[in-house]
């Protein structure tokens, strides 16, 4: 039995996937690291001040300095806190944030010799559902961390965060159902390939995209929906009792989430690794170069979305909690439902003709 298993393991595949995982995770972490710098720089520019400019050229070493600071601080676990859950909280938040990147197609195939590597860790046929499952797991990070702190402000913030994420996941899912009607597949790879031939989904689903981006803001706990971290209401939110790198993990997970949701928005609605105004199939350039250019296109789109996230954060004030719930349940969900029904009718009409 053991011998049989040993024979059946394709070591080349295992190594390929391991390398891919290392690269993808380090890219996500690197982008998240520099998002913290970019966030403060964007805030500075929008508020007519320079932003971080002391550590290194243009303050580019600021994230390194922050990491050193966070690592060297005293790591405190409150005496009344639940110690296991207290440590589990940031770990879960970080895990859920990084895990989503597994199903994203970061580019087309590249060929080394006669070995073809697909620039995607796992092409699941239910990729979208996987993303949803993992994102939903991210709520546990907030919830467990807030509860284990044994602090009423943390708990309030955690409850807010959990109910907000659950409310907005509904509208997000409904807006995606309409998208899936159009693409006919749950696999992210298929969605991107479909967009390369048919044009980007934003043309077919503008309202769906609007609902999706609003829900993405809420899922990432970003302003104007940053109620779990409302400083002036809840001191510091669910990570009030955290210090040192545990706090760092929470903050870092937020930025990874932001980057990943930007990548997902780019993949679902803006063609993923599709290079705009360029026909990949008909070009004579080597496919390896096209794959890298495609990866560059995806990253550019994602970074534009990250910058929009920041731009919105430094523009719009926070919603009140009842306004948040009203917007989620009374506006976005009905809108998403209408969008879904209309899309379904149009898709059926195009396929079968009137009267279906």
């Amino acid at each position: 039995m053991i011998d049989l298993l040993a024979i059946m393991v394709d070591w080349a595949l295992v190594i390929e996937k391991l390398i891919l995982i290392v690269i993808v995770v380090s890219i996500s972490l690197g982008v998240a690291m520099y998002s913290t710098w970019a966030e403060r720089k964007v805030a500075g520019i929008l508020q007519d001040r320079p932003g971080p400019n002391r550590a290194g050229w243009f303050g580019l070493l600021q994230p390194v300095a922050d990491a050193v600071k966070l690592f060297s601080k005293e790591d405190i676990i409150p005496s009344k806190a639940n110690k296991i859950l207290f440590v589990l909280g940031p770990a879960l938040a970080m895990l859920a944030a990084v895990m989503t990147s597994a199903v994203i197609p970061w580019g087309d195939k590249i060929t080394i010799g006669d070995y073809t590597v697909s620039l995607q860790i796992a092409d699941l046929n239910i990729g979208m559902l996987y993303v949803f499952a993992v994102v939903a797991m991210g709520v546990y990070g907030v919830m467990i961390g807030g509860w284990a702190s044994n602090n009423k402000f943390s708990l309030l913030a955690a409850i807010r965060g959990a109910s907000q994420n659950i409310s907005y996941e509904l509208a997000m899912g409904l807006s995606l159902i309409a998208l899936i009607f159009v693409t006919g597949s749950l696999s992210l790879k298929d969605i991107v390939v479909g967009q390369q031939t048919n044009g980007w989904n934003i043309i077919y689903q503008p309202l769906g995209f609007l609902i999706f981006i609003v829900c993405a803001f809420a899922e990432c706990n970003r302003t104007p929906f940053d109620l779990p971290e409302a400083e002036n209401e809840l001191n510091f939110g669910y990570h009030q009792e955290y210090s040192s790198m545990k706090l760092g993990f929470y903050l870092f997970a937020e930025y990874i989430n932001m980057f990943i949701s930007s990548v997902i928005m780019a993949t679902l609605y803006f063609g993923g690794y599709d290079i705009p105004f360029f026909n990949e199939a008909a070009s004579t350039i080597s496919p390896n170069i096209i794959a890298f250019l495609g990866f560059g296109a995806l990253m550019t789109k994602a970074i534009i979305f990250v910058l929009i996230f920041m731009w919105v954060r430094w523009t719009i004030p926070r919603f009140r909690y009842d306004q948040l719930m009203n917007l989620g349940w009374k506006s976005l969900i009905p809108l998403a439902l209408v969008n879904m029904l209309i899309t379904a009718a149009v898709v059926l009409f195009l396929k079968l003709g009137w009267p279906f």
Partner: protein
Amino acid sequence: MQALTNRAKQVDRSPMNFWERMYLPSIIKGMGITFSHVFKKNPTIHYPEQTRPFSKVFRGLHVLNRDEEGRERCTACGLCAVACPAEAITMEGAERVEGEETLYREEKYAAKYEINMLRCIFCGLCEEACPKDAIYLSETFAPANFNRKGFIYGKDDLLIPDPNKDPEGYQKAAAGRVREKVDVVETYSKPGSNS
């Protein structure tokens, strides 16, 4: 009630109409406003490299002045210590002996001269009291130290550089710190002369 300015606006508490409830128009408007700040001039003064010009009457940390030949002007008369409302200045006088003419301007000099910068209120009364133009308030400010002892400035902290040993430093100190008293007096006397 009469309004103080004409900028007051009545708060509109009527319920939002459909256009306003969509939030999007005002969000886009707001984002336009923040984006316009990308092109605006940054008013920041990068402090250690750039500094704001001081007012002519700025009163910072004290310096003890020298004359052009590098001799200390202070004669330890004690008028500054008497004038000081915070009793921050202490001194000990000594008599100049043969051969010290290049060091001290007059026959008596301050052997010890201390200002407690924690007590000092930077009122400038010492500067006004001094008959020998020996003490001035400079444009240096914000001293930092690790213990209270460090804030008691002795003669070596207060004296400006010797023009014989460090002419550049003397020029800098004399130009920056030793201000023309005439100017200051003029600025002050102008409103008085009008009335």
